[in-house]
Structure formats: C-alpha cells, structure tokens
C-alpha cells in the first residue's frame, strides 16, 4: 500500500477521445502510455517517478483490462532488462525510474538493449532529479543516451507536448530500432496541467502471442561477431533512420520570426518555459510565447539534427545554447555541426550561462541579457525594469535574517521506528567510542543530520553494506553498515551481505526493516507484512540472510525497545563470533501505520467500542530544560515551550498533539537514564462499567491522599 492513493485519479486514465484531462504531469504520462498501446510496463520508485509507480499499481484493474502486464520491478536493472521483450517481438513497453541513479543501476541492461536494438517500441521514462528539491548527486542522463546511443526526448513542460512525444517516441523507437529515453524534470512530474485525450489502445501483438510463437535471431544477441555488426548498424542504419523520423514528424520546434534577427537561442525542450519567462522579463516575448528572438526548441536533446541546426543558424551571427548541467554536450555538438559545415555563426552557451545548477528564469534572464548586450543590443531596446531582489536582500533587516532563520532539512517523521535505532547507536557510541558507520539510501540516511550525526558515506541504494567491505580488519573497532529493507532487496542481499559472508567480513550489518520502501512513498517490497493480492509479500529478511550463509543474526521486533536495541548492538560490536554480525531491526513505518490505523481507531471510537488511545507528555515541573531528550530524538512532535515562570530561564520540553505514542521518549529517558519527566497518557474511550468503577474508586482514594497533603502544606493564598 503506497503512501498516496491515486484511486480517484486513476478514473481519469479511462478518459476517451476528445475528453480533457486535468491533473498532475505524472498521470498525463501514464495516460500517454496507455494511448500508445503498450504491452508491458515496469520500473522502480523514487522521486519524481514514485507517483508513476503508485498510479500504475492503483490502475492495475484498468491495465489488466487493456492487456498490459505491470511489474513492480526489483530494481532499475530488472526494469531495464525487462525491455528485452521488445527485442524480438513487436511489443511496446515502457519502464520508469529516478535518474541518474536509476540509469546507473540499469545501464548494463540498457547498453545491451541498445546494442542489439529493438523491434517493438521501447521507452524509458526517466525522472531527471536535478536542481532544487533533488535528493541525489547532480549529473545528467544525457551522457547515457550518447554512450549507448539511445534517443533522448526532453519535451517542453506542457502536457500536450509531453503526451505527443511519448506517442511519437514509440514510433521513433520502432522506426530506428533503438530504445528511447524520455526525461521529465521534477517540477514537470508534479505539474498540474491539461491536454486533450485519445482513446486507450490495446496492444495489437500481445505477450501471449510472443510466448506462443517464440522467435530468435542470433544477430540481435550481443556476442561477437554480432556486436561489431551492431555497432555498424547503429551508425549506418539506426542513426539516419532516427534523424529522418525526427525531421519528418517535426519533433523539434521553431518559434519566432528569423527575418532581420542576428541572434537566436537553441534550447532544450524542458527549459522552454523558463526561457520564455526570461524573454518576457526582457520585453522580448509575450505571455503566449510570441518571441522576438528566434528559438529552436530541441524536444529531442539527442541526437542533434544537423540540417535543422544549419537551417536555424543560417543568417544568424550568434546563437546561444541553453542547456542545463554539465558537461555542455549539446553546445559541443552544435559547435561541431556548424564547424563541419563552416556555417558563419558563433556558438555560445556556457560562456554566458552557469556551468552547473538550476536554470531558473532569473538565471536565464541574466545570461540572455548579457548575450544580447554583446551581440544584438538593439533587440533589448528600452528595457523594462527587471525583477531584482538584490536591493531588498542587501537591506540590513534582511541581512540580519540570514543568521536567524534556521536550516530545516528533511528528517525522520513523528514516531519513526528508525529514531530509537539511532538513539541506541548513540548510546553504544557513548559506551564503546565512535565507530565507522557506512550509511545507505533511504529515510535512515537522515541519521547523518542533527541530532544524530551518524554515518560517514553513502555509496548508492543497497550499497551500505558493500561500502564497508574494505574495513575488514581484525583487532580494530568494527565497522557498522546500515541498509534499509528497500536497498536490501534491491541488491544489498548479494552485494553487501553475500559479499560479507564470502569474504568473512567481521563487521556489523544493520538492516532496517520498516515493512515498505518508505522513503519513496511506502511501496510494498518482498518483506512487506501486508497482504497484497497481486504480489507475494511476507518473505523474511532473516531467512534470506541465513540462506546466504550468515550465522550470527539477531531479529528485533520492536525497534522502540531502546534497551534491547542497545544491548544487541553492543553484543554485535563485542562478540567473538566470526563473520558478519547481522541485525534485522523491524517496526512498521509510522507514516504508513498511522494511515492504516487511524481510520480504524476513529471508527472503533465512533461505534462505541472500548478503545485505548495514547499520547506522551512532559511534566513541566519536572523537566529542567536541558533538552538532552531532544538530542537523542529530533522528533517533530517533541519540541520546547517557554514557561511563564520568571524563576526559570530555559524553555522546557513539550510534546504536542501530533504525538503518536510510539514510546521512543520514554524508552530513551529510561535507557539513557535521562530524567523522569516523560509520561505516557492512556485514555480509555468508551470505558466499560468496570473501567469506570475502578477509576472512580482509585481516584477517590487518590483524591483523599492529595487533599490530606494539600491541607498540611503552607499556603500563600491571600
């Protein structure tokens, strides 16, 4: 069960010819796939592609009706390899993942696929996680497209254009026997927009047809001598075929009137909107894209179409290439084209625009303005005032604010079961000293931030264990490697644990099992505990680990037991046992648990059933305002509050009503011997007669004792 349900939105996927679709970009992409007649679809979750996987999961009935096989792939490599169905058969298929990380994982499969070539249209939707909001290293997918020769589509961020490019992309793939990459940036995935629909298409040739009449062709298999022939085929047949298709179907676009212009702009499709806004600020375009500077919009970012570039540059003195990220592949290829053809135009790009970082409208405005100032100042005319925050940002009151506003990086949610694990690790570090900690990708990576400050490196999804492999040294402090359940099944079982068994690694391997692939939105994985009618869940991590040869395994079923967590960690770090020490720490992701449990509790209370609800609290008279508890927690619901007491200086800890009573506060206070300020409050809703009677009797006795003591106290009441 994913974090977000798209059950309602999935209805929009059934829209037919002429209907208007309104919604998120990722849904528009899904709809485009269905309109293209795909036979199979798969992928691996990760922002900004997670919602695509969630939509597909929620749309399973619809997909089945259309004869589409949807696979929740084990990894991007699995998804990439799945495209091999399109090698021999006229089957259209699509897979999706977060890039460049997912493309890294899949690149082996993609390189083989691209070499042999495809018969049916094969498309990879990559969520280009670059710029603000990105969670990964800043790289471009472009390089993969070039090295394996796959066409890279980069549509204008407009749903009509995106949908069209997907449909045309399958045709292009088939016309040139080449897999196609379609890249969408984070904001375009989450962009609300609209387009006019077509009917969904059932595949003409089905998977069943393929299986019942299998085909093989040795020349499609990557093995010498076929591999050498395939390279020649790429150059001599597939490349020209693609160029031809792209030109004929006008996938790239020309805007503005070139007559009289000395300058022009060549822009990747995805950056079109920001470029138009920059031109609008400069007074060179209106809100509808009527630009005075001619534009060549490359909705196909690779390959470069020589003749189109030449046509655009003809008569221009200077062109500016607007291309986000580095290296400047497009600028280089445009330069090559114009140099070979001896076109009398100077190519600019990264000399006016920054080498790295987001190309926001403000950045583009600055670059284009300087470009035009140098090469065509007449264009700029009487300049309208440009948006400029600098005079405001340099005001003393704003300057001062820089030191005031605290950073707010993402962190573990309220009640997260991973929090007590890191609290326990902090406590063990206090006892045994600091250890080297290899971190992994997932929510648990937030351990690197305050208040835990644990973890030294992160080398990729599922590679936490593998990245500790050098640290197999007898007699030294043991290394600790962390890995989530998602990363474990993605590849960590073999790359990390299997590797450690085989090499007799002496380190500690901590697998955090929260029943979902949580960081990506709570998708089910092999070890998920929930029943899923389409997938086989409930496959134990412990069994898998034992199966691969680990002999020292400890399973913790309630991570909130900080004492036990600490003891097991201590044992793992100090035991004489040889080989990898594997700890599987399991508790359900609280975000997902609350989504599951909250409605049940509400219903139970409404129906009059006896229901206990819990929350934690802090006795403000007992708390001394040291905040040691927060330094071992960082829970969003555990905050501080100022008291109205003039005798006290420091704010005390306080728990707000978003507390989910996970128990961490109390357990940590106990395990770390902090203070007795925390209490858990249990409220019995719809109490039974016995509950009420017992409470009345107890509270009566307690009230008597309380009054007795109050009478004895010295009171300063007037």
């Amino acid at each position, binding site marked *: 069960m994913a974090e977000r349900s798209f059950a309602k939105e999935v209805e929009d996927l059934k829209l037919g010819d002429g209907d208007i679709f*309104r919604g998120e970009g990722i849904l528009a992409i899904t709809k485009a796939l269905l309109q293209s007649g795909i036979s199979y679809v798969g992928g691996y979750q990760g*922002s900004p592609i997670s919602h695509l996987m969630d939509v597909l999961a929620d749309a399973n009935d619809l997909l089945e009706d259309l004869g589409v096989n949807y696979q929740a792939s084990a990894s991007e490599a699995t998804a990439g390899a799945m495209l091999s169905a399109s090698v021999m058969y006229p089957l259209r298929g699509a897979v999706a993942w977060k890039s460049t990380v997912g493309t890294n994982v899949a690149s082996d499969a993609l390189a083989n696929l691209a070499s042999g070539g495809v018969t049916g249209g094969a498309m990879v939707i990559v969520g280009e996680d670059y710029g*603000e909001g990105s969670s990964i290293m800043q790289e471009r997918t472009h390089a993969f497209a070039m090295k394996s020769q796959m066409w890279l589509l980069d549509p204008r961020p407009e749903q009509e254009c995106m949908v069209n490019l997907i449909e045309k992309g399958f045709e292009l793939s088939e016309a040139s026997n080449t897999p196609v990459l379609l890249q969408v940036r*984070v904001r375009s995935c989450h*962009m*609300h927009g609209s387009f006019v629909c077509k009917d969904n298409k059932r595949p003409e040739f089905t998977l069943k047809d393929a299986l019942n009449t299998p085909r093989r062709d040795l020349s499609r298999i990557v093995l010498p001598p076929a591999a050498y022939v395939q390279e020649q085929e790429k150059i001599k047949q597939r490349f020209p075929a693609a160029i031809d298709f792209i030109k004929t179907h006008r996938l790239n676009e020309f805007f503005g009137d070139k007559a009289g212009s000395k300058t022009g702009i060549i822009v990747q499709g995805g950056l079109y*909107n920001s470029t138009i*806004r920059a031109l609008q*600020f400069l007074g*060179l375009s209106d*809100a509808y*894209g*009527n630009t005075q500077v001619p534009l060549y919009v490359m909705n196909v970012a690779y390959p470069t179409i020589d003749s189109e570039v030449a046509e655009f540059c003809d008569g221009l003195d200077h062109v500016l290439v607007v291309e986000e990220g580095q290296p400047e592949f497009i600028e280089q290829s445009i330069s090559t084209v114009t140099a070979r053809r001896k076109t009398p135009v100077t190519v600019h790009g990264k000399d006016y625009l920054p080498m790295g970082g987001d190309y926001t*409208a*403000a950045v583009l405005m600055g670059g284009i303005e300087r470009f035009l100032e140098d090469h065509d100042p007449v264009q700029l*005319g009487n*300049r*309208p005032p440009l*948006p*400029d925050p600098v005079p*405001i940002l340099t005001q003393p*009151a704003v300057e001062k*604010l820089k030191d*005031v*506003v*605290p950073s707010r990086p*993402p962190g573990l949610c309220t009640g997260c079961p991973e929090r007590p694990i890191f609290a326990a690790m902090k406590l063990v570090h206090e006892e045994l000293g600091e250890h080297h900690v290899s971190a992994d990708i997932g*929510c648990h990576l937030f351990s690197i931030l*305050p*208040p835990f400050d644990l973890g030294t490196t992160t080398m990729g999804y599922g590679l936490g264990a593998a990245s500790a492999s050098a640290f197999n040294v007898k007699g030294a402090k043991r290394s600790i490697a962390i890995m989530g359940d998602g990363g474990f099944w993605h590849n960590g079982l073999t790359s990390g644990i299997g590797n450690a068994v085989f090499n007799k690694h002496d380190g500690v391997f901590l697998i955090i099992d929260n029943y979902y692939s949580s960081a990506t939105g709570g998708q089910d994985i092999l070890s998920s505990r929930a029943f899923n009618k389409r997938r086989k869940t409930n496959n134990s991590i412990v069994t898998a680990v034992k199966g691969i040869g680990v002999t020292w395994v400890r399973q913790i079923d309630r991570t909130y037991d900080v004492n036990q967590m600490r003891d097991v960690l201590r044992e793992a770090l100090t035991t004489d046992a040889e080989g990898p020490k594997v700890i599987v720490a399991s508790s359900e992701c609280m975000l997902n648990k609350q989504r599951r449990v909250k409605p049940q509790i509400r219903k139970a209370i409404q129906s009059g059933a006896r229901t206990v609800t819990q929350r934690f609290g802090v*006795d403000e008279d*007992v708390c*001394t*305002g*040291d*905040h040691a508890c927060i330094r071992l927690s*960082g829970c969003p619901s555990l905050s501080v509050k100022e008291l109205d007491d003039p*005798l006290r*200086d*420091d704010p005390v800890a306080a728990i707000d009503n978003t507390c989910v009573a996970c128990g961490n506060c109390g*357990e940590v*206070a106990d395990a770390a*011997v*902090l203070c*007795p300020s925390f*209490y*858990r*409050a249990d*409220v*019995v809703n719809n109490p039974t007669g016995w509950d009420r009677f017992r*409470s009345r009797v*107890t509270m009566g*006795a*307690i009230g008597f*004792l*309380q009054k007795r003591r109050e009478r004895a106290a*010295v009171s*300063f*009441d*007037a």
Partner: protein
Amino acid sequence: MKSDTVKLNLEAVGPATERPISVAIVAMGGQGGGVLTNWIVDLAETQGWVAQSTSVPGVAQRTGATIYYVEMMPHDPEGRAPILAQMPTPGDVDVVIASEFMEAGRSILRGIVTPDRTTLIASDHRALAVTEKMAPGEGIADSGAVFDAIGVTAQQEFIFDMNDLATRNGSVISSAMFGALAASGTLPFPRDAFYEVIRKGGKGVEASIRTFDAAFDRAVNGPAAETLAPATEDAETVTVPTQVRSRKANRLLQQLLKEQPAEVQEIAFLGLKKVVDFQDAAYGREYLDLLRDLQARDAAAGGTARGWLFTREAAKYLANAMAYDDIMRVADAKTRQARRQRIEQDLGLKGDQTLQTTEFMHPRMEELTSILPARLAAAIIARPRLYAWLDRRFNKGRRVKTYSLSGFVVLYALAGYRRMRRLSLRHRDEIAHRGAWLDQATEALDRDYDLGVEVLRFRRLIKGYSDTHDRGKSKFDKVMATARRLTGREDAAQWARILLTSAVKDSSHQSLDETIQTVETFV
C-alpha cells in the same frame, strides 16, 4: 555601458499587464501546502482561468522546508495557451503564503518578497527546527528579526497565528491560509468561489469554512479586542500580597516585606513560595535569612544605585539552588492534583473517558544513596562490593502507573519522605555547593558588581538528573574556575556573560572549551 547608449523606441511585445498572477506557498513537508495549492488551482480553473502548479516534493516531504508554486492567467479570448513558469522568480512574486514564521523568513531570504508587488500572508506561529530544540538551554530563533524584515520587504502583509485559529475552529492551517488569501484581495475571485472549492473537497467542510471565515475576518478586521491586551505582561506581573491567611506563611511574608527593598519583593516572593513548596516553612526562613545577608552585601557594594540587581538575581537563583531536583521532588510533582488536571486539559478529556499515566523512571544507585541519611550513605559508599551488589538490584528502568493505587502510594510515600531530606547526603552536598557559589559571587561583588551578578547567573547551568546533572555541574565548575581568573579585569563581566552563553548553547562542551581557551590567552 552599452545599455546607456542604446535607447530605441521599441515597445515590449505584449501589454505589461498581461502577466500571470504568481503565488508561492512556502511550507514544511506534510503541512498542508499541497492541499492549499490544489485549492488555488481549482479556484482559478473554476473561474475560467488557466492555472499551473508545480512542486518539488521528494524527500522534502519528510518535514523539511519546501515550496509550491502556482501561476494563473485569465483565459485568452483568442484561445492561445499561456506559457507559465515552473518556479518563482525572485522579485516577481505577487503572493507569498507561509505556513510557519521562520519559513516566511526563509521566503524573504529567497528574494521572493519584494515591496513593489508582494503580499505576504504568514502564520506567525513557530514549529521549531531541530537545531533550535537541541540546545541545552534557550536556542529559539528570534521571530522579531522576521517581523523587522517583513517591515521592509512586503508590499502588504497579513500576519497572525493561523495554526491556532484553525485549531480553535476544528480545522487545519490550509483553511485559515485560504481565508486570509481571500481576504487579501490579491485574487480577483468572489468569496463564494472560495467556498465552492472547499465544498468540493467533501471532507471536514463545515470546520474548513468556519476556519476560512474566521481567518477572513481576522485578516480584514485585525485582532479581536480582548486579544489586543498583551497577555505576557499579565503572566509576568506578580502582585505581592500584604497579608496572607496562613499564619506560618504570613510570618515569612512579613519578614520578606520588612527586609527586602520593593524592587526585590516580587521575585523574592516567588522564590519564597518555591522553597516552601519544596520543603517547609523553616526552609523558607532559611531562604529569607540567606537573602537578607546577600542584600546587605549588595547594599555595601552600592546596590541601591543598581536597582538591587544583585539581590534580585540572588532571589531567583538561590531559590532554584535550594529547590534542587531529587526523588522526593519528582514524586511530589507527579502526585499533585493540579498535575492531573493539567494533563486532562491537555488531552481534552471529555465525557466518560478515563485516564491513566505511566511514568518512565530510572533512578540509579547514586540517587538512592543521595537521599539516605548522610552517615548511612557514606557507609554504603565506603563498601564498594555492597554498593555494586545493591546497584545491580536497584539500577533499572521502572514503569510506574501513577493513577493505580499501588503506583500512587509508592510515589506518595516517596514525596512524604521529604521530611527526612535535611538529613540526606544530597542536602549536605547541596549546602556546601551553594555556599561555595555564594561565596564566590559575593567576593566578586565587592570588587566588580557586574561580575558578582554574572556568577549568580552561572547557577542556570545546573539542571537535569543523573548524567545530565553531572554534565551541567562540570560545565558550572569550568565556568566558575575561569571566572575566578577573570576577577580584576575591566571586561570580566562581559567575558563571564560570554562564558555562560556558550555553556548554555553547548551540549558537548566544545564551544565552551573554545571560549575558555580564548580567555586563557589573556589571563
């Protein structure tokens, strides 16, 4: 410059007015920014406008700072589709909506709030960042700085606690922000259109509309009259009575009124109540006697001219020193009637719901021995093997059900054991510690009034239980030792203040040690 030489009679392509209305929503992940964004898009579309929204969720959704962005334009009569931007451009945003006050500050730092065009709608409540909460003392960012910056950046602003308003009306902050947006007049849509959008949502409609209306009114009319009175002043003004009913208490009160100057009476009254509450009337007497002596030293050091600053600080910190945190105090706090009432109120207990609380206690052997009579405690400590044996049996986490008879009686008895407190090892240690501290403060006072005051304030470092208490004490010792070496310098008080600040903000001793190293370079 070229721009100066080129002045041509060229017009911009389109009319300048034909720009989209841009709205940026700055929020923390999972705080309702997405709901508000969808409402705004829906609002524009139902009014026949073209709207586009974008966001960058991903990991930012996990409680981090994030931003949503909406642009909208009226439908073009010629049917052309506008090209809308996917992110806000600094200096070009019409409306910024902030769901938390430091996020409002962050939006100002992003440059998206500018005086020529931006309406800022912000809730001034705080959700504290981890770094603010982590400090072992006061570490909360200064909201005043955000108010100052808003003053010079926003074209118009609507600032109030939308979170509180929403909670009071049984809804969430997005409804309140939507109401404030409607009231701001920045979107050319009628109020009914906003209602329509909320109603379409289907969930919690009534509460949402109630919140929307309340926020609308609050944005238009300003704060209601009764909330205008500064509430904080009420809380901090303490009226000292001239007479109280209880004879024991009255005797103490009269002593206080007689011995202490008017400026000191308020804080000393609070201090007196605290120590009497901690122990008994005799203990209050002890407090007043100590304070009287300190006030005499203050007078000798010229305290009159300083408004008795030294005595006032002494009244505060002496009370804190005397009412130290031991097992009896904790047990007492947990068994009071007011405590249960506060929890019931916090939880909003209603109807026939019943309440039980569980305490998480982990007293160590150290705490147990410290409350024993000093000689007995010393005898146990002198026998390490016995001590270790007892420790193994005693030192463990204990979960106590407060409102069960068995749990309550134990706590109640422990609270009653305070009658024996004066005999305890802890009490003896506390008196010695307190004495040394007061001695150093008064010695400093004679030579340097301000340094004397600062030494009193060092008391703030002693807090917590168990290890935390030990850590606080070691910080206190370091600061005291360094201060002693500062005596005689002109800037001694200033450095003492810096020492205290770095000790308060620092849990690892790192910045404190650095400050001490700096001090050591010149003393």
